C-alpha cells in the first residue's frame, strides 16, 4: 500500500487506483498478420520484473484517467508518474 501522485488529482491513496499492468506493450498494427507465437507474446508473456518497472494505472475512484508510473516492485518505491503519450522520464 502506498500513496500515488495522480498527474491530474495529486496525492491519493493507492486503494483509489487500479493497476493495468506492464506499460508500453504496443498493440499489433496488423493483427491479421500475427503468428500464434506473436499473439502469445502480446497477450500473455510479461516481463514481471523484480525491480524498476514501467506500468499503467487508472485513477478508477477519482478522475478515471489512465497514466503511467515507474515503480520499483521490490520495495514499492515510486520513481516517477507521467501522462499517457508522454515520454518516460529518465530516472
Amino acid at each position, binding site marked *: 500500500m502506498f500513496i500515488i501522485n495522480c498527474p491530474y488529482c495529486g496525492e491519493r491513496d493507492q486503494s483509489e487506483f*487500479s493497476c493495468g499492468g506492464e506499460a508500453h506493450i504496443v498493440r499489433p498494427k496488423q493483427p491479421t498478420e500475427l503468428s500464434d507465437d506473436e499473439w502469445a507474446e502480446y497477450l500473455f*508473456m*510479461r*516481463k514481471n520484473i*523484480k525491480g524498476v518497472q514501467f506500468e499503467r494505472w487508472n485513477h478508477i475512484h477519482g478522475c478515471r484517467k489512465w497514466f503511467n508510473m515507474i515503480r520499483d*516492485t521490490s520495495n514499492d518505491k515510486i520513481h516517477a508518474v507521467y501522462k499517457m503519450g508522454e515520454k518516460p522520464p529518465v530516472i
Partner: protein
Amino acid sequence: MKNKYSIFSLIKNAFSQHQNWKQAWGNPEPKKEYDAVIVGGGGHGLATAYYLAKKHNMKNIAVLEKGWIGGGNTGRNTTIIRSNYLWDASAGLYDHALKLWENLSQELNYNIMFSQRGVMNLAHNLQDVRDLKRRTHANRLNGIDAVWLDTKEVKEFCPIINTSPDIRYPVLGGTLQKRAGTARHDAVAWGYARGADEMGVDIIQNCEVKGIKRNGDQVEGLETTKGFIKTKKIGVVAAGHSSVIANMAGLKLPLESKPLQALVSEPVKPIIDTVVMSNAVHAYVSQSDKGELVIGAGTDAYISYTQRGSHDVVEGTLKAILELYPIFSRMKMLRQWGGIVDICPDASPVISKTNIKGLYFNCGWGTGGFKATPGSGDLFAHTIANDEPHKLNAAFNLNRFISGDLVDEHGAAAVAH
C-alpha cells in the same frame, strides 16, 4: 529407515530428555556437479527431489534454497487442500495430489497432520449457485466427491454461519467436498526434506541462484552464491520468483507476481471444524489445531515482490468474515503476512519443459499451490526424469498460451484474480 519415528523412538528418547534426536536432514556444501538441480526448497521443490530419488532413482541431485526450507509460500499459505476443480485436466491433477495426501504421513514417516475436515464453498448469488452446481456435477463425473448443500444444510454443517436472508450477500447454498481439509504446512516441507535427504539428496540452504549458464539451447549449470554448479537438468520451482529465474535464462513466462495475504487470530476453543470458503465476498476461514482462526485474504492488484500486501485488502476480507460470522466480531487478529504468488492468465499452473533443453518450470500456482504439493512434485519429477510430461500434467504445458488451449479455472480458484 535409519532414524524411524515411532512410539518406541519417542519413549526411548524420553529417557534422554529428548536431547539425542538426530538432525532430520543435513547441511551439505554443494558438489561440483549434479545429475539434476531443483531451484527452490519449498514443498513443491522438496517433493520433486523426493520423487526423483524415490521413483526415478536419481540420487545425485540437489535442492537449492535461497533462504531456509519452507520459509516461502509453503510456510505462508492457509493450508487448505481440496480437488473440486471444474475441468478434467485440473480434476486429474488435483485429485492425484489429494490421493497422495491421504497416505503421506505414512509414506514419509512424518506426521503432516492431514485432517479431512471437509471444505465448503458458499454461493451468494444466483450465478454462484449455477456455477457451483455445475462444478459439483463435473466433479462427480470425474470421480471426485462433491455434494450440493442448500442453505439449511450449510447451517447444519457449520452452525456459526449467518444464513439470514437479510445480509448483503446471503448464503444461497454451497458445495461440500468431504475428503478435502487441511495439513500442517511446515511439516510437509520438513517431511519431504527428511525423506529426500535420507535417499542422498543434498538440501542446500542459504544458496541463491544468480545466473543460468547455457550452451546454445542446452543448460550447463547454475551460478550461485556458493559458486558454480554444473548440471544438465534444472527444475525451477521458485513460485513468486519464477520470472526472475526465467529472465536469467533469457525466457519470458506468462506470469505476474503479486502479494497474497493471510492472517491468524488469537487462539480460541474449537468453534469451526471445517474449512469455509466464499469466492463472491472473498472470505475463507478455518481453525488451526492451536485454536487460531486462519483467514485468507486477497491479492493486491499490482505486481510487487514485497511480501507484505495492502491493508485495504485485509479490511475487505474481514468485513466479509464479520458479516458471515458475527460471532467473531470481538476476536483480535494476532499476525498478518504476505507471500508472493505467481499468477497465470488462466489460473492454472505450468508444469512443463521449455524450449531450452534441460530447463523445466513448475510455476504459476498462483493463490492455490499448497493443495497440490505431493502431486506437483510427483508429476514434475516425472517430467524432469523422462524429459516429457506425465499424462496428468500434459495439459499444463507452456505451449498452451500459444495454442490457446487454456485451462480456465478462475471459477474454482478461491481467490479472484
